[in-house]
Structure formats: structure tokens, C-alpha cells
């Protein structure tokens, strides 16, 4: 039986790990390579790096981080943040990323998703959707949550599936950094709409939130940052908890 995945996410800035609360107030908390290794040794099913300020700054540091990490971690590594072009994707894959997540560029030009999935295969193309609720719908945000495009998140999710995305990483902007749990309504709507796996993100504060993301949000995988990063729970504890709730996990 296919297991639900737990994916710790490390926000990386200038080659160092940080975690933003609602994308601001950054705190430096460690070396990404060592952190990733701790997670993979602890049973993480996948590691995610998000280069958070990549849109604005020199991002060559992330390539070194990816190179070093892929020599030490033998679980899948997903890298996102500031990915603009097919060349960017190619460079990250060559450095050892297994999947690349595309956010702003996918919104601006769906062709990047079409071309990169054709060139490298859908299996390594993740589209990251940052969505925020506005009355009765969710709107897609870009540029690390700074720009509202007004695009309907559910329609966009379907369009990305049709464009060749292999997975969707869905982050609720309303919940990110709040520790109040995923936006289950958003997750379940997107999960039931597409036939590709979805990853729930944004808002995890305790282990029941992970359970809800899978059971109620129908996510194939759950992503979390701060609960693991600041040692509130280990990946192992999270897995054991999910297992106790009847969710299939790799232990």
C-alpha cells in the first residue's frame, strides 16, 4: 500500500535555514545540509527546500546547498523558490534536486510547466500554489505571497494538472505561520478536483493537523516546517501518531 508522506520543509536564505512567520520575522536556525540529514535519518519521506528570498537576491548559494545535501541524503529532495525558467530547473536537477517546485513562473507563464514536464518528466515538476481566501473563493498569490493575481486557485490547480505538473503543493496563505492547521476546505477541494497527488502546506501546529490534512484534506503528503524545526515533534513521533490514527505511513 502506498504510504502518506511527511515532508519537513526548510526555508533557506543565503544558504542558511530560516522559518518565516507569515513570511516575515525570520530567525536563523541552522545549516540546511545538517538539518536535512537529521530529517532523513529520522524517517522523513522527502525533504523540501524553499529558497525564500530567491526572487530578490543572488541565489547561487542554493545550488551549493542542493549539491551538498544530495550527497548526504538519499531520500527525495524537492527544491523551490525563485525558479523562473527551464534552465533554472535543469540547473537544480543537475545539482541533485529530484523535484523542482515552481510558483510565480507557473502563474505568469504556464508554458514553463508544459515545457519542463516534457523535457524532464512530470515526476519532477511540482507546482506550488499559494492561495488566500477572498469571500467565497481562493485567490492565487505570487512572489512569496506578496502579489495577489486574483486568479481562482481551484481553476489554476486544474490548469496546472493539464499543463503537466506531477504534483501540487498547496499552501494556505491564511494559515501559514499561524499553527492553526491546514485550510482543510481548500485542500479537499483541490485534492478531489485533480488526479495528481497533492501536498498540504501552511499552518501546522500539532500532530492532529497532519492527520486532518490527510484524512479530511485528502492530501497524499503533508508538509510542515516549524513543528519539526524547533523540535516540538520529531518526524518519528509524527509518523507514530499518524500510524496510531490508522494512516498508512512508512515506519
Amino acid at each position, binding site marked *: *500500500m502506498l504510504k502518506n508522506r511527511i515532508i519537513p520543509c526548510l526555508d533557506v536564505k543565503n544558504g542558511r535555514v530560516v522559518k518565516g512567520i507569515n513570511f516575515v520575522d525570520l530567525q536563523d536556525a541552522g545549516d540546511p545540509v545538517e538539518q536535512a540529514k537529521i530529517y532523513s535519518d529520522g524517517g522523513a519521506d522527502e525533504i523540501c527546500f524553499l529558497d525564500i528570498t530567491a526572487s530578490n537576491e543572488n541565489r547561487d548559494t542554493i545550488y551549493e546547498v542542493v549539491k551538498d545535501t544530495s550527497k548526504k541524503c*538519499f531520500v527525495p529532495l524537492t527544491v523551490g523558490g525563485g525558479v523562473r525558467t527551464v534552465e533554472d530547473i535543469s540547473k537544480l536537477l543537475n545539482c541533485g534536486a529530484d523535484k523542482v517546485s515552481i510558483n510565480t513562473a507557473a502563474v505568469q507563464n504556464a508554458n514553463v510547466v508544459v515545457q519542463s514536464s516534457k523535457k524532464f*518528466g512530470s515526476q519532477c515538476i511540482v507546482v506550488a500554489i499559494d492561495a488566500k481566501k477572498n469571500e467565497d473563493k481562493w485567490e492565487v498569490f505570487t512572489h512569496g505571497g506578496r502579489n495577489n493575481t486574483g486568479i481562482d486557485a481551484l481553476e489554476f490547480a486544474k490548469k496546472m494538472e493539464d499543463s503537466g505538473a506531477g504534483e501540487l503543493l498547496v499552501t494556505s496563505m491564511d494559515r501559514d505561520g499561524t499553527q492553526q492547521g491546514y485550510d482543510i476546505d481548500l485542500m479537499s477541494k483541490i485534492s478531489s478536483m485533480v488526479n495528481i497527488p497533492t501536498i498540504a502546506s501552511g499552518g501546522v501546529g500539532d500532530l492532529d493537523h497532519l492527520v486532518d490534512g490527510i484524512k479530511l484534506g485528502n492530501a497524499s503528503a503533508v508538509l510542515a516546517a516549524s513543528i519539526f524545526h524547533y523540535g516540538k515533534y520529531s518526524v518519528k513521533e509524527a509518523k507514530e501518531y499518524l500510524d496510531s490514527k490508522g494512516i498508512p505511513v512508512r515506519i
Partner: protein
Amino acid sequence: MNVTIVDYNSGNISSVINSFKEVEKDKIKIEVTSNLETIKISDKVVLPGQGSFKSCIDGLNSINGLVDTLNEFAIEHKKPLLGICVGLQMFADFGYEEVKTKGLGWISGKVSKIDNQDGKFKLPHIGWNEINIKKNSEIFKGIENNSHMYFVHSYEFVPEDKAVITATTDYSSNIVCAVERENVFGTQFHPEKSDKIGLKIIDNFIKI
């Protein structure tokens, strides 16, 4: 010993390279090349593959003499070869991703899309799944039945002769996830991404 990882523009092979280097440190020579002479004198060959069946076959065919050299290595000289993911799929006679494409024809069968039972199962089949070991295999030495491996694929190899199947995995149906015919080995899952247990498979292959 020389192990060659065939580099034929099949997409991302850095993880495969890293995993072989991790397993063997500096004990053996690992080449990453499409150079025909290097392949010929290798003791073992690894055939990775990502992307579509057609793009991988096109990649092999784009290098003059590569398919002949691989045939000579694996079929005539019967030296150990490991195909990973689409690398395994290419053993088939035909693949049906994008368009019907002729494969290497080393193990009779076809590669077709996994039946998602009208959307009941998500595709790609991504994540960790248990392997049911069907037959003793050199590459499964020390690997417990029902171990978890990392998968990412939407197509499956359906061999004609079921005797070549060494392991399956359960998803929407029983999916063939490892095959073996004499000296030719293949895994649909990614041992290079399957943590310590996956590295053990790589180690087993090197030790054959």
C-alpha cells in the same frame, strides 16, 4: 572493478551517481559516460531513465552505436546490467507513453499506463510503497520482504513471462516493480532515493 552509469541525456541522474559513490566510496571506479569503449570494458552497467519512455529511447538512439554496445554488453556477453525506472521499462518490446515506441526487447512485454480505476488512484504513483518479493534475487540479499521503496511513475512494465518478476507492489493493481533475466536486473522504484535500504540494493548489485 569498473561500473559505468550510462549518461545519455535521460534527465536527472545526479542522484544515481551520488548513491553509487556513497555506497562504494573510493573502492571501485564509477564512470558516468556514454563513451562506447568505456562501456565495453566495464564490469557492470547502470541504465538510469527519467522522463518518458520515448524521450529515453530517443536519447539512447541519439548516440551512435550505444544501443548496439548495450546489446553486446548485456545480451551477448551477459554482463550485469541494472535498469532503474524508465531504464527498466526500456527492457520491453514496446512502450505506449506518448506514442508506441520500440524498446530494447531484452525482456518480452510492454509498458503501458497504470490503470487509475477512473481516477480513484492518483497518478503518478509517487511515494513509498512496500515491495512484495516474489523470488530470490541477488539484488534483494539482506532485504526484508515488504520493505519500503520510493516510487515515482505513471507507467508500468507488463512482462509476458511472469517468471522474470522478482517483486511487485500494490497500488491500483499489482504492479511489477523488479525484474530479472539472467544478468539483466531492473527496478521500477528508485533505490538511489530509497534511503539505507535502497543503498543496500545498490551495494548488492555491485557485489554480484
